[in-house]
């Protein structure tokens, strides 16, 4: 009897101990170790693709991704009126008031996550011996271009413009992964811009026109970003050259007027689009795809965007860009008088980040500043006549010519990346609301309302930032 007991016990115990050897060593779930990423071109490409996707991954309507940052700028001006729905706090210039509110925390963290991913990638790729430079440099160049873009947007949002005072404190400048450095304190506008130029210079020198799709950065896009940066810095030689390279230098090859009323929703059939977010049926922002989701009044969406009477009046009837309708039969005094049909909303509607007409107008603007009035006239007319068969070539000079170029920028690019706000900020002009606005709130030149507060959670967790950094903001 006793023997049976012992045998039973030994059997059971043996069974358990025998399988214990590897019991705690188990495969890990979803996720790849860094060694996999930086050992091959495919792994590195996957990380770059992840960053590209990060630029358009969805969220809340007014805090989805790069497109929300851009559209929030659009409603801060005079041309666009926003109903009481998403982005109303931007329209009312109130979203900046509290350093815990979403506009400031979202814009900050969304861009800094991209920066840290880029830093991790650049360090990992540079240290990788498994992939030759010729293969990895174009990838590093893309990461640097995206990092430069992120710093550029941060500098624009969180401090006065470069021309105001480049020595002002600016968001922290991380040049390597934050795990190496821990949090760091504020930089200066000058330091940030120097770093942006360095990144973009590397990018344009190491990129070609080749790319996987138009959602990735190629040499044209890198030049385009550089052109915008030089615009802000009043470096007109640089802006002229970069803009010219960005669109190729031949306006007639870069403009397709028939596409303007195609709904701004398909990057592949829009030859003017240099860069944008490609949305698909299974990869999209859903109900967060501004500007389309907020401005299209014909299909179910938020019906948020209305157009100022005074802005509509700037367009001639023969202008292909005059896509305004009194959708609601609203009185002329009502803010709901005009809507625009520029953007067709659907979940898979692509979103533009950069188009060739902008580059042509940057070149025109730069030529104006560089004293080439005729060149500016020609480029401006190239665009104007392309959009409106009855366009008359400008004979303006001086400030009048510049103003005409800037008006043309608004007419061409409204609701895309916040052109009116961008121009007012860099020229330190201010914006006065006129016409049939819902809320009349003006921006003075160098108004503090051009600046977001530093997020409270950053101040709370970053000992290198002065707790009073927001005083006066």
């Amino acid at each position, binding site marked *: 009897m006793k023997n049976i007991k012992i045998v039973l016990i030994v059997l059971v115990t043996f069974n358990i101990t025998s399988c214990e050897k590897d019991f705690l060593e188990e495969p890990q779930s979803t*996720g790849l170790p860094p060694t996999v990423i930086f050992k091959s071109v495919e792994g590195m*490409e996957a990380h770059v*693709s992840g*960053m590209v996707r990060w630029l358009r991954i969805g969220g809340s309507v007014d805090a989805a991704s790069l497109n929300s940052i851009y559209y929030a700028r659009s409603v801060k001006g005079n041309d666009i009126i926003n109903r009481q729905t998403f982005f109303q706090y931007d329209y*009312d210039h109130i979203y900046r008031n509290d350093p815990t509110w979403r506009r400031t925390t979202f814009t900050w963290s969304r861009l800094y996550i991209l920066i840290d*991913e880029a830093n*991790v990638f650049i360090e990992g790729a540079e240290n990788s011996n498994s992939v030759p430079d010729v293969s990895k440099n174009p990838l590093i160049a893309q990461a640097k271009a995206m990092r430069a873009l992120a710093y550029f947007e941060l500098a624009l949002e969180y401090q006065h413009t470069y021309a105001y005072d480049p020595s002002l404190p600016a968001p922290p400048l991380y040049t390597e992964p934050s795990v190496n450095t821990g949090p760091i304190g504020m930089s200066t506008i000058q330091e940030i811009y120097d770093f942006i130029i360095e990144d973009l210079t590397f990018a344009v020198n190491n990129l070609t026109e080749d790319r996987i799709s138009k959602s990735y950065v190629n040499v044209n896009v890198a030049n385009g970003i550089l052109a915008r940066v030089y615009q802000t810095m009043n470096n007109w030689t640089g802006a002229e050259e970069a803009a010219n390279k960005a669109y190729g230098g031949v306006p007639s090859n870069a403009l397709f007027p028939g596409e303007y009323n195609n709904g701004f929703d398909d990057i592949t059939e829009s030859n003017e689009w240099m860069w944008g977010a490609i949305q698909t049926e299974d990869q999209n922002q859903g109900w967060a795809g501004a500007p389309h989701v907020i401005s299209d009044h014909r299909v*179910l969406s938020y*019906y948020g965007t209305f157009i100022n009477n005074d802005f509509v009046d700037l367009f001639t009837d023969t202008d292909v860009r005059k896509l305004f309708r009194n*959708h609601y039969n609203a009185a002329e005094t009502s803010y709901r008088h005009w809507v625009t049909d520029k953007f067709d909303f659907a979940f898979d509607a692509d979103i533009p980040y950069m188009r060739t007409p902008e580059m042509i107008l940057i070149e025109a603007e730069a030529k104006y500043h560089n004293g080439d009035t005729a060149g500016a006239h020609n480029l401006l007319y190239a665009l104007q006549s392309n959009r409106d068969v009855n366009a008359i070539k400008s004979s303006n000079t001086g400030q009048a010519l510049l103003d005409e170029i800037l008006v043309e920028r608004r007419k061409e690019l409204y609701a895309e990346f916040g052109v009116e706000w961008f121009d007012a900020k860099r020229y330190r002009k201010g914006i006065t609301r006129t016409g049939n606005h819902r809320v009349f709130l003006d921006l003075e030149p160098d108004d503090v309302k051009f600046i977001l507060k530093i997020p409270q959670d950053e101040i709370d967790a970053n000992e290198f930032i002065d707790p009073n950094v927001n005083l006066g903001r």
Partner: protein
Amino acid sequence: MTNKKLRKHHKPDCFYFSKQKNILCFFLFTLITSMYAQDKVNVQGKITDKNEIPLLGVSVIVKNSTVGTQSDFEGNYTIKAKTGQTLVISFIGMKTIEKVVTNSNIINITLEEDTESLDEVVVVAYGKQTKKSIVGSVASIDSATFEKQQATTVTTALQGTTAGVNVMSVGGQPGSNPIIRIRGFSSINGSNSPLFVVDGAVYNGNINVFSPDQIESISVLKDGSATALYGSRATAGVIIITTKKGRKNTAPKVTLRTQIGVSNHTVEPHKILNIDDQFTYTWEAIKNNEQYVSGNDVTTSATRATSGLLEFIGYNPYGPNVPNPVGIDGNLVTTNKIWETDWRDVIFNGAAIRSEHSFSVSGGNENTTYFLSGNYLNQDGSVKTSNFERITTRLNVDTQANKWLSAGLGVTYSTSQQNVPIQTGGSTTSATAWALSLSPIYPVYQRDENGQLMKDPGGNLIYDLGARSLQLINGTRPYAPNQHAYGQLFFNDQNTIRDNISLNGNIKINLTPELSFKTSVAHTYYVNDYYGYSSNKYGSSVSVGGSITQNKNTSLTTTINNSLSYNKSFGDHSINALLLQEAYKYKYGELSATGQGLIATSNTLGTTTTPTNVSGGDVLHRITSYLGKLSYDYKKKYFVEGSYRTDQSSRFAKHARKGDFYSVGGSWVVSEEPFLKNNNILNYLKLKASYGELGNESHSGYFLYLTPFIAGSYNEGNNPGVLLAWPNDPDITWEEAAATNFGVDFKLFNFFNTSVEYFNKQTNKLFYDVPSAPSTGYSEFTTNNGSLRNYGWEVSINTQNVSNKKFEWSSNFNISTLKSEIIELLNDVNSGDTNLQEGGSRFEFYMREYASVNPDTGEAQWYKDILDTDNKPTGEKEATTDYSSATRYYTGKQSIPDFTGGFNNYFRLGNFDLNILLNYSFGSYLYDSDYALLMNGFKSQGTAASVDLKNRWRQPGDITNVPRLQTSPNSFNSRSDRFLFKNDYVRLKALNFGYNLPKDAIKSFGASALRVYFQGDNLLTFQSHKGVDPEQGFGSSTNQRALGQRIYTFGVKLEF
């Protein structure tokens, strides 16, 4: 596989209406052999309690034999025994007595109630112990507690009945489990949920699969020594659930119970303005806007408010003949309306039905016992269509195969279906957000410009989605256009089906009389199958042609343990030793898919045209453990106990994997000493103390030490994309808690039982999600950082106030205090409304201080520090209307209560009995964000408004704390202590009033007991802050939650 089909499939035929009750358990009868062994003399007698009430089902066994029987309805028994043999008479709740058979063959027996309960056995870690021998802190409730309340999830019954256990039932969704915190909050970012153990094995399934009638007892292990054997997962306490078993030598007992109830709501939500007031107040808000924000004169402002009002509101319930419902004097032109919507009435279910039916059969012979139970429950929730339906069965069989081998098997199968419409949070698709905060102006069904109801071609009303932009009036709802949280209760579907199979098997071998070996295997397979359907005809998914998400999660838990236990008594000494080896394996698998584009009325994932998401993966988690326990007592007077456990968990890196945990404890039964023995005043006195070191490995991130690249969510088109996860500490390891317990148990005047305990639990090496500066690219970094202390007192008093044949009254009162303090923290951590710092409490609100309304402008004000020239606070403060510049202060107010507890009274008068259970909570504060929203002053378009806006500022000089109404954005109702309210409450949690039919009356149809009763749950709530259910979780804020349920139930319980 459609849900409709399953719903049908899951509905049982009510088992117990079957007349052939024997068929139910015929297979069990095969387990039962020779029930009545025959012997020499017929001994008979009557068994009663001290009030001469006959006792049914009392077990009578001839000692050291297999002969046994039970008393019948009149307490009579007959048994064959030899002269000189001893009869052992035992009954639950009574003292067991022994009688020697003499020449007389009649032995009448009076059993005494076991009020001391000291020999009562409670379930503890890996075994059982008498209450007297316990050196740590263990609270328990038994089946009697369950019978007196509706514990849809069994753990709800702990609320108010056990000291030191804080239970919170949040919302009104049946089948959702209460939050349980034992002796406070041992972790900040790790898990604070207790470990669940069912019949000896760690349980990972959903606790709502068990029905209360299957539960014998729930033990709550609170201190270090009681929990140390589960050391590695025990910092937050352990809850041991033990299911019912049959008893040896008892005839089959069948119990049937059926009850039907109806429920409404525990409390009334905040009162809101009617349509008329909504209109005039909104008018005022627009006027204020024009006047104070845009700077227009009063007349212009009033004129603009009158003309702009409808454009702002969008709907006109006064009809097309009243184009401007409010005149420039601010008064209504008319009060005749076409409609007014009571969204609460529309969305909340004021007559939710609850029905529950159960049967069980149990019994046993001298070798084998069995218990079989089936339970069916169908309960509607407090939001319409919310529902929980469950069928659960349990079988326990134990057998003594021979003198040295015994074996047991327990099986639970449970299946449930839960419809959970969104009923928390401010999302525009949340049914409760609509019910609690949507303006009554907006209609349920679509109306034309004239306010007349519209119909579809089939003549049916159409849900008003508020997104018909071309209809200028009654077309576009400013709040949540294109949503209809009420309509989607019907045209969408959110269903969860849960299946749970648990098997517990064990074999025990007695090697010698003192030494035994036991091996047990427990296996739980749990499937959580979620199905979400979003219509292709209505609502937000129309543009993608509808959408279906299916999410199938399975978890498989296997625990195997082998143990040697040794029990030996010699003289006055007793030794008890246990050695145990355990392997724990947990596998969680998830598979989720979403498809869009439904074909016509199809509702299965397979018929969608566009797959939009596929995700899934497995998590494997394993622990190996060795543990030992040694206890010793001398004369049942001095008890000492020690235990040790070592674990290795796969949740940590190899070098950080091992954890060692131990405990020691002792107790002294002072009343056994000669100087106290037989004292008439102090009948019993016991002192005890314990110390234990425990661990916690549980954090929502599974393998925290890894920082992988995440794939799956970041693909760009057809190109695979990855991003780096947020980094964590690669050396992260166990959280460790040191728990001390001191206690005294005493009994006065033979009826007054008291237990007092003091506990102090310090958790070190906390899992801490240290907030990281967002500029680093991640917002937190998880590491071991800081320590936390929880301490408090627990008192529980049991009294038998009156007890005689006619009348009986007993009471239980318990109270627990809790303080939580941060002992050590790397640096101050601010997160929203708290600011953690050493010496502070993590539950203290840290927010702006409201400084009432500026009488001149009507703007809200908050305090801010006056700074000196170095920007340092001078200690003085001033009011400011600039919210962002206002200073955040420690409020001295906490979100956890100072003390909680319960008060239970049981009365019996003849055949009537009444049980009343109150529970209470005092000292906590609640941030009422629901109320703050209702006080937004028409800044948030389309929301309802609190009646308290009547106190608003209206003109310069007004002294009030309600700011002016204003439609344009403002900070007036932003977070501050203005909306922080004291949240004390006392709740009549359960009332049970029953009548037991006289035995004579029911004998005729073969029943042994028949009880009819009324059961009321949450009948009354007395609270310091009205308008929300006081149980809002420990998260410190309301969150548009559904109201709790007040349930009225009638039931019948029959035994035969």
